[in-house]
């Protein structure tokens, strides 16, 4: 397809949501390519309009989620991801990808630390859309559900920073209730360009209607799930 947007999925040892994320990107119209960190170079970034850091446990998430992946990415790519964003590229970090983007400094200051329960949590959550003009969220309703699955998803930042992010429109998504102790219930965060989004929930796990836990859940179109609309939104933004 002419002008088909290209997505590059960066894979670390322990990244494990790359296949289903590529599947979702392709369903939304992207061409998608998974590239292990050992094989990445800046030329590959040139070809992509969207770089995705998918979920998993990069390097086991030892020390803290995302830290070792951050160090490895800095070694391999220097500040190439920042340059990629600055020249108009889009970056999406899902779950572990959100943690890595945060550690890389591509998102507002803050950290994703252990859930207040001290546990891994796998469940579906209600989300509220906060980023009104966010290019990843255009096709989504004001509230919708996605599944989460993480141990370190509690967003914290110094002082009143979380409130400020809300006020400045950097908060893309909030949880409908307190699921992990996140400050201001932050579930997803953008940078000031709006082209970088990190979120803890997994849109790729709600691609189809049949992914929903309730067999009577009604899809707006009878086929797709809410995650699809997220990938479709960013696809349509890039393709426009």
């Amino acid at each position, binding site marked *: 397809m002419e002008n088909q947007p290209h997505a590059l999925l960066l894979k670390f040892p322990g990244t494990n949501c790359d296949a289903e994320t590529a599947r979702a990107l392709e369903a939304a119209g992207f061409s998608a390519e998974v590239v292990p960190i050992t094989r990445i170079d800046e030329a590959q970034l040139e070809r992509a309009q969207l770089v995705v850091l998918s979920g998993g446990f990069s*390097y086991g998430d030892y020390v803290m989620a995302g830290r*070792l992946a951050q160090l490895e990415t800095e070694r391999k790519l220097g500040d190439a991801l920042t340059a990629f964003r600055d020249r108009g590229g889009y970056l999406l970090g899902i779950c572990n990808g959100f943690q890595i983007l945060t550690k890389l400094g591509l998102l507002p200051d803050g950290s994703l630390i252990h859930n207040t329960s*001290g546990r891994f949590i796998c469940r579906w959550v209600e989300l509220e859309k906060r980023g009104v003009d966010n290019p990843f969220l255009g096709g989504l309703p004001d509230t919708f559900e996605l599944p989460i699955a993480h141990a370190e998803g509690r967003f914290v930042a110094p002082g009143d920073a979380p409130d400020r992010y809300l006020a400045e429109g950097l908060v893309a998504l909030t949880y409908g209730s307190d699921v992990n102790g996140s400050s201001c219930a932050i579930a997803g965060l953008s940078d000031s360009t709006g082209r970088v989004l990190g979120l803890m929930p997994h849109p790729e796990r709600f691609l189809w209607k049949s992914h929903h836990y309730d067999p009577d859940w009604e899809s707006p179109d009878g086929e797709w799930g809410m995650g699809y609309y997220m990938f479709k939104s960013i696809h349509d933004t890039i393709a426009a």
Partner: protein
Amino acid sequence: MATLTAEVTGNFDTRGDAKELVYAPLDAPAEFRRTRVYQLEYEGAEADAEAFVRRVLVDAFAEEVHFGGSPALGGYTFYLDYGMKPGALDLEREAILASYRGARNKSIEIASLKLIQRIYLFADGGLEPGRFIRDVCNPAIHVWDVTPARTTGAA
């Protein structure tokens, strides 16, 4: 060869109910907090070693690091240090060293790295460490050490 001891505390951590640590109800209420302690043996400048710890082992926004070796928290009844016994696989340690080996322009040479999980216990009426050792540590893989509060009051 120099040694650096770094204790990492979470800025957003709060005390938890100590019953989470044991398998049967406690006689009296007690609370706990966890920290991580790294013992680094290295060749190089102390400032570089501290920079390595801050860059690799500490979160800039959510954690504080305390160098020097004296306990980072006070007011405890005792603290329990435990770690993998020599020869047992410590995945976090391996991951840190693997990452370090891959680094260019190393400012320090790491000779050894030891990871210790530290649990501070707080109780008003005193607390016996025995149950906590038994339920937290396993002699099959762990070594441990208990340090009571000094009778003159905690640091």
